């Protein structure tokens, strides 16, 4: 495959399987969809009475690199983005995922696994929208 060695292919699939297990656990035990934007956004909802499971899910996600670093070396992350670009990206991701009822996890993983027409459409739209954005940023500007 392009730009990937066998180990990276294996790690991508293994990581995906873990994400699938995590989503299965949450729906089977808690009866909830593992959609990160929905779980986080629900905490901003006034009058929400299901704070505990949202909070602990997000806590698990936030501490995951600390647990990972006990077992393996954390990957080196390079991000070259100006602060204004990070802020603009964050605003669009926050607003867009709430308006569109989901992100890569809720629509892209859980929704596709449920064979939801809405999630399949949303996933196609945000991937194409992301591709056009990267094309403009990398090849036109």
């Amino acid at each position, binding site marked *: 495959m392009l730009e990937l060695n066998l180990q990276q292919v294996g790690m991508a699939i293994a990581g995906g399987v873990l994400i699938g297990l995590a989503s299965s656990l949450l729906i089977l*035990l808690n009866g909830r969809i593992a959609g990160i934007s929905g779980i986080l956004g629900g905490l901003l909802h006034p009058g929400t009475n299901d704070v505990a499971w949202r909070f602990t899910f997000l806590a698990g996600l936030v501490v995951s690199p600390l647990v990972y670093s006990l077992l393996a070396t954390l990957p080196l992350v390079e991000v070259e983005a100006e602060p204004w670009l990070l802020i603009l990206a964050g605003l669009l991701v926050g607003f*867009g995922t709430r308006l569109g*009822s989901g992100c890569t996890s809720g629509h892209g993983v859980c929704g596709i696994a449920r064979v939801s027409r809405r999630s399949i459409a949303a996933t196609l739209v945000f991937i194409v929208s992301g591709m056009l954005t990267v094309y403009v940023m990398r090849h036109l500007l």
Partner: protein
Amino acid sequence: MRSFSSFISGLLFGVGLILSGMTEPQNIIGFLDVAGGWNPRLALVMLGAVAVSYFGFRYAGRREKSLLGEPVHLPTSKALDTRLITGAVLFGIGWGLVGYCPGPALASLASLEQTPLLFVLAMLVGMGIYEAIGKPRPTN
């Protein structure tokens, strides 16, 4: 117990994101950059995740209560409406600008670097703006 199971789910989710390279924005941009050297990693991650969770959701969908006795919350809306599509377009633009979506950004916070922190704060503001002005108005 319910809080513990969701903690374990969040933890596993995050470890999966890190292992698969999804917390490295260069891998996301590489996937979205079809005119550059295309990096198919994200597609493999989705494939692995969907292949497993398909069975989880199929089993959960047949139950009225979860294994811990909670109601099973599954979306019921089927409409491909303007909100869904507009939201996905805006999310895609933000995603393509830096290569962060909500999960990987949160799983990167513990590095205490400025980059994910700034992104997550702005994302929370974006979600707050939605709560203030973007919610559907009740139709009467």
